[in-house]
């Protein structure tokens, strides 16, 4: 698979169809993968793909990276879950589909965090998204590399994230508040969740605006609630459950729970799931007379 990936990247760079291939490469010790930017055909041998390739590289396609944009037309190595983010970016006018060459890779799942890797991909070290994945064969791509898989996700989503959502749904408001207060109180406002997210593409995030200061930038409980809730609201109906924010969080805040809960609410209210159709606008940014109104009380 890696041979084909490298060959394709070489072709794309040699022909001038793209100027940079954004993919995964090994770190020095070959224990972790890390994003690489390949610009010369002879460097394509650095590209790898394996279950350690956790990063969602679509983040480098956002306007937060003018220096990467200046490199020219990119090709990006993307798993199905990463492609979902590209689809949302296209639907929100952040990117034209033809502006990026998607090298889709079929995927058998990745590790939740790279440090869990001990040479073998076991279900226990895979994130919940992989167990419920319906895009192991990439759904949108210019080329797909890898054997087609016949994995079928369970009918109803399963896993810790969904169990926890059910548990929180059953809590009283005071218990819910206590649950989130405990987790958000650890937040150090490093904004790794925002920075790693390709759908947090604003050049100036609301939390960084200080005239006026809409959100308190202090990492105290009030400021942490304000930040984490506003991010959840801004991702509502857009989050594709790629899980990067929770993976990047240095203090283990269970962000998948809150973002996935919001996705379920949107699915229920609008029948919409983000990341499948680049031509369909997310419900929170369009007005439709056909919208259900029964949730407005």
């Amino acid at each position, binding site marked *: 698979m890696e041979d084909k990936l490298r060959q394709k990247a070489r072709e794309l760079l040699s022909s001038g169809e793209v100027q940079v291939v954004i993919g995964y490469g090994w*770190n*020095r*010790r070959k*224990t*972790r*993968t*890390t*994003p*690489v*930017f390949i610009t010369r055909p002879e460097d394509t041998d650095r590209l790898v793909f394996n279950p350690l390739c956790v*990063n969602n590289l679509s*983040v*480098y396609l956002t306007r*937060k*990276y*003018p*220096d*990467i944009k200046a490199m020219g037309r990119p090709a990006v190595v993307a798993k199905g879950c990463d492609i979902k983010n590209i689809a949302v970016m296209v639907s929100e006018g952040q990117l034209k589909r033809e502006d990026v060459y998607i090298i889709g890779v079929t995927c058998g799942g990745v590790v939740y965090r*790279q*440090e869990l890797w001990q040479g073998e991909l076991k279900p226990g070290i895979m994130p919940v998204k992989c167990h419920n994945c319906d895009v192991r064969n990439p759904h949108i791509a210019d080329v797909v590399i890898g054997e087609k898989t016949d994995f079928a996700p369970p009918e109803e989503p399963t896993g810790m994230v969904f169990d926890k959502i059910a548990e929180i749904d059953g809590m009283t408001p005071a218990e819910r508040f206590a649950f989130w207060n405990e*987790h958000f109180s*650890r937040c*150090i*406002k*490093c*904004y*790794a969740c*925002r*920075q*790693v997210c390709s759908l947090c593409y604003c050049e*100036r995030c609301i939390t*960084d605006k*200080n005239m006026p*200061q809409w959100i*308190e*930038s*202090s*990492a*105290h409980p009030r*400021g942490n609630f304000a930040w984490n809730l506003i991010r959840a609201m801004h991702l509502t109906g857009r989050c594709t459950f790629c899980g*990067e924010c929770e*993976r*990047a969080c*240095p*203090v*283990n*805040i269970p962000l998948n729970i809150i973002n996935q809960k919001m996705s379920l609410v949107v699915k229920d209210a609008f029948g919409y799931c983000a990341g499948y159709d680049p031509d369909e606008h997310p419900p929170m940014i369009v007005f439709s007379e056909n919208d259900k109104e029964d949730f407005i009380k």
Partner: protein
Amino acid sequence: MDKRLLKRERLDRLIDGVTRGGGLFVAPRLDARRVVYGPVTAADEMEFDYIVPGNSFKEFFFPRTEPVARFSFHKQGTELEEVRPEPVETVIFGSRPCDAASCASLRSVFTWDFVDEYYTEREDAAVVMTVACTQGDESCFCTTVGVAPDGRDGSDILLRETEGGDFTAEAVTEKGASFMERYKDAFEATVEGREKEVFQPEILDGVDLERIAQWLKDKEHYSSPLWPEVARKCIGCGACTFSCPTCHCFDLVDEGTFFEGERRKNWDSCQFDYFTLHASGHNPRDTQYKRWRNRFMCKFHIYPGKFSTKGCVGCGRCIRVCPVRLDITEVMEEISKVP
């Protein structure tokens, strides 16, 4: 002072002694599936099997947010009130030598051209009890930057684990000696049991700190194409700086309503794009690799140029927490081999 023995079952006695007097006993403990430095009230809350805690203990001297002044506006005028730090005796138990070494680094900055009492008063009231490392991981690189896994710098008391799970204790400073004297019923005079072997992280052969400092010093290299090459993947979060024991930047912000509020000292990070954003709209560090370059230059050029303490202590946290695995030691190697 000779070595003493601190038995694990005596830890509660020590914790009780410190906390009963209104002090804070900080030790590695489990919080949300990771080991962190945090306050404990009993030894059974502590973790003993860890490499290096996820956070650095700087947050007990330099909190992520703290009020420094309060203000209110009335018809009659404006009222201003200073908020002073209220330091309590703080014992940092189970520190690692890298973290202990970072105290001197922070102190250098916080006493440089102005004495920041919010930091110094808290650190003055602290006793650092370091446990020499008996394990490490591939991110540990203290030996490469001149810190030893059983080093004494910055510690008041140096502990070593024994095979039986107890600790030998040796006072390093006067403060440490008087602490051991004050809580002498927790320490035994006769040392028994063999000390565990110290874990030595591999010294990275390819790293030449002297050469790095020289290369960084040359202004020509500020715009070297090497920078975007090594740091293009940086996504600009503050995970590295906030986990770093020597990163010390902060921002002063005013919070509150129109009529009253407080001025707070909050952690800030050079990795944020608005860190150097001018009021004019101009940003001298306009792309991410330039911000990453700044952090690297701060550690290995700017900081060593000003102070005799270490800009980087090799704890490896920035490598472990980086969402894109931008490994600072790989860049150190790259720069060391530039002809």
